[in-house]
């Protein structure tokens, strides 16, 4: 059995493969692509979110038979250290992760959202990001998605790309510094009572 993982045909060792086996466990335990996480096993938490033909899907419920020959993208292919995805840059700018466990799934869901909806509204984000985060990074996830949308800055694409593959991350333009500097703007307490407001994202025009 062959899979197409992150653009590469990936043969699987037959002795450990069962067509009913969910994709999550093939990624993690057979291919050792451990960026995709197990959280609930019932599709509720979204820690296992990957993209299948450009759509965000929960891989803990996705049997191998359903993905054979189709394009599977995991967090490992979202960007590279040299060319991070705009979301990854926004994640760093907004200091989104805490424990970080849910963040791969968050990012893959957010990337699928931006691929379909380059300028998402708050309501779009709320509808698309149903991943659970126990640490409560939601306000920063929201803000970072808005920032990434700004930095992509390309003319709006069709709501559904014709090609099944998600567009590769565009060349990353320098990230426009948001004003005011968002939640990172908590100034040193010595300079007086300081405030930080998370979740007050710059809105796309």
């Amino acid at each position, binding site marked *: 059995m062959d899979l197409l993982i992150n653009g590469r045909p990936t043969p699987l060792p037959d002795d450990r493969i069962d067509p009913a086996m969910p994709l999550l466990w093939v990624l993690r335990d057979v291919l050792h692509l451990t960026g995709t996480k197990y959280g609930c096993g019932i599709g509720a*938490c979204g820690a296992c979110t990957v993209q299948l033909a450009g759509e965000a899907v929960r891989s803990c419920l996705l049997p191998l038979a359903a993905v054979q020959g189709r394009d599977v993208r995991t967090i490992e292919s979202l960007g590279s250290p040299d060319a991070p995805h705009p979301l990854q840059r926004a994640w760093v700018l907004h200091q989104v992760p*805490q424990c*970080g466990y849910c963040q791969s799934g968050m990012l893959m869901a957010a990337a699928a959202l931006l691929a379909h909806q380059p300028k998402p509204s708050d309501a779009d984000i709320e509808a698309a990001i149903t991943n659970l985060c126990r640490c409560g990074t939601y306000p920063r996830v929201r803000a970072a998605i808005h920032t990434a949308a700004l930095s992509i800055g390309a003319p709006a694409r069709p709501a559904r790309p014709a090609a099944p593959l998600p567009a590769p991350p565009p060349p990353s333009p320098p990230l426009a510094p948001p004003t005011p500097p968002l939640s990172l703007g908590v100034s*040193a307490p010595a300079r007086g009572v*300081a405030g930080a407001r*998370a*979740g007050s994202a710059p809105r796309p025009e």
Partner: protein
Amino acid sequence: MRRRAWLLSAAAAGGALLVGWSVLPPRARLGGRELLPTEEGEVALNGWIKITRDGAVRLAMPRSEMGQGVHTALATLVAEELDIPLERVQPVDAGPDAIYGNVAAFVAALPLHPRDERSGQRTPAARAGRWFVTKLARELGVNLTGGSSSVADAWLPLRLAAATARAQLVGAASLRWRYPKEEIVVRDGLLTHPIGYHAHFGVLAAAAATMPPGEVRLKPREGWTLIGRSTPRLDVPAKSDGSAVFGLDVRPRDPPGALLFAAVRMCPMLGGAPQRVVNEDEVLRRPGVLRLVRLPPAAGSTAGVAVVGVTSWHARQAVDALHIEWQPPPAGTADSGAIEAALEQRAREALARDGGFAFHARGDARSAEAEVLAGGGRLYEATFRAPYLAHAALEPLNCTAQLRDDRLTLWAPTQVPSAARAAAARAAGLPEEAVTLHVTLLGGGFGRRLEVDVIPQAVAVAQETGGRPVQLLWSREEDFSHDFYRPAAVAVMRAALGADGRPVAWRVVSAGDAVLPRWLARTLPALATRMEPPDKSTAEGLYDQAYDVPHQRFAHVATDSGVPVGMWRSVGHSHNAFFMEAFVDELAQAAQQDPVAFRLALLTDDPRHAVVLRLAADKAGWGRPPPPGHALGVALHESFGSIVALVLEVSLGAPPGDGRPRVHRAVCAIDCGTVVNPGIVAQQMEGAVVFGLSAALHGRIDIEGGVVRQKNFGDYRLLQLADTPPVETHIVPSVAPPTGVGEPGVPPVAPALANALFALTGRRWRELPLRW
């Protein structure tokens, strides 16, 4: 029994232990170079710091990163004193030595009252207690991440270790370049002399290692360039590209391809055990299934079985296919409904006869009640309830173990490495020296990973895999069904209000299962004593609050209901803040006063609290009319040394909404002493609001016939992005030593929500979750 009497008897017992106890030198936590193993090109300068060939710093990291930013915060302390960019300080595993133990967490467990140590003036009992526990904790050296204590604990030792290393590096440069130390400048990880000499730390590390540090001085506050700034966290890049390694991401490659996976099924009845596995042979014949391993109860766990397979999925499928006959625990099965009713009865009885353990008493509350009634005042009584709660960290419990040639290697996402190593050694029948523990990143902790129940399970499985490493992973269902739950609790609260509405007397009795003694017994059995100390961990948050009411008696009835209970983010404060602050809000209403003004009038002795409360109220626009259909609620609470005030703005979703509470805005103010990284403080406050709202709106664990009903996120709901309000964090400037940040944001959430809902609807909520 009064608190003071207990403190004295504990001190007396401690005195016996002190015979022959040598006084540790003040710099004993610096540690020798030999404590820090080095790889080629690395030079250790002390027990905490080593320098790489290219001049970077490796910090022996004693605390576990579970999202609270501790790796960044502790690295910041070191980078500050060494004048090296933060990203050049990399955390590495700290070993088992006692210098890495957490002293502050143990001192904080003393049942002191803030009045015992107001503004540095400690009572003799407080001084003695602190001295004794500090010594004890320093000797024991328990490496533990909890109690929001990490920065407070590291504040002096880590800066001192870095400043000592810096002094040695400067000394080495001075010797090599033959210029006085005073002329050497350290900046950006470089040592320079104005005449043109320069070198990075790696060049001088070997010479520095043998250099006496001379007089070591910490940087003055005015010289700080990192402490107090929102420096980016060290762990964010790896947590944004999938490369961060959590417990279940460990993939040992020695030998290649050898890793096996194990799934667990414990008796669904808490404390029960498997009696017979009916279809073992049949299940073991399945492809990809290798072994069945019996798991005896250990470290508080319920007994069960594990199946080893070639992937976690093969193992899970097999263990779920087992037909197992279970036997209930000999002591009978627990029912949460009955337990909660019994707690209320115990609390009522204790209130009637002034029973329970009085953690704080002053004046004469009972007589004051009579006087108030005679003087035209009145009594106000309310009963509050909180349910059992699960931790629900997103990374289910797991541990990876490999047992080869009488050496055990563990990879564990744990908050308590000392106990994990000891539990593993006990389970394997090996000395602790034969156990190597690698602490991974934690996919959330919240107190759940202060338990080591999963460790002996992983060892039991590793004993059956012939030297191959094995990763044992719980399902989400096992994780919910076999937690150490936040205990259910009840408080009966009575206040005597004078004719002017001001509280004159408070009598409060709370009841709930003791946490700390049972946690010690199962997790650090060497420390468990027969003398069960008063359990501050479930009483905290009521007796230790700042309101200046002249007559008070705060007592707690510690129970043991047989349900495994543990520490849940903010522990006793998590429910007691709800009891206290919802009650105070009711008293304000009874006195027909504004909730903020009413609290301020009771904070005459505590200017820090008043400052925090005013800050949150000002920033939230308290006193101005909120938007139509919205209302504000406030709560103020001190925990883990920090004071947090929270204002929530809520509405009820109008049709076509569901009419359920919706939080529009959270405004938080905190005084947590000196702030190392305000960005991380803001993160923690945001996270605390989400964590607290999940519990206040949805959180409840029910136990019937010993079986936990909630099994997964479908029936244990968490807040989602769409439900989460923007959170503002405002920090009170302070030069006091740092105090807790990870937990103190949680306690005020539930009462602020309940109080806001009251302002909106006129209805009072006295039970969590706030049922709608």
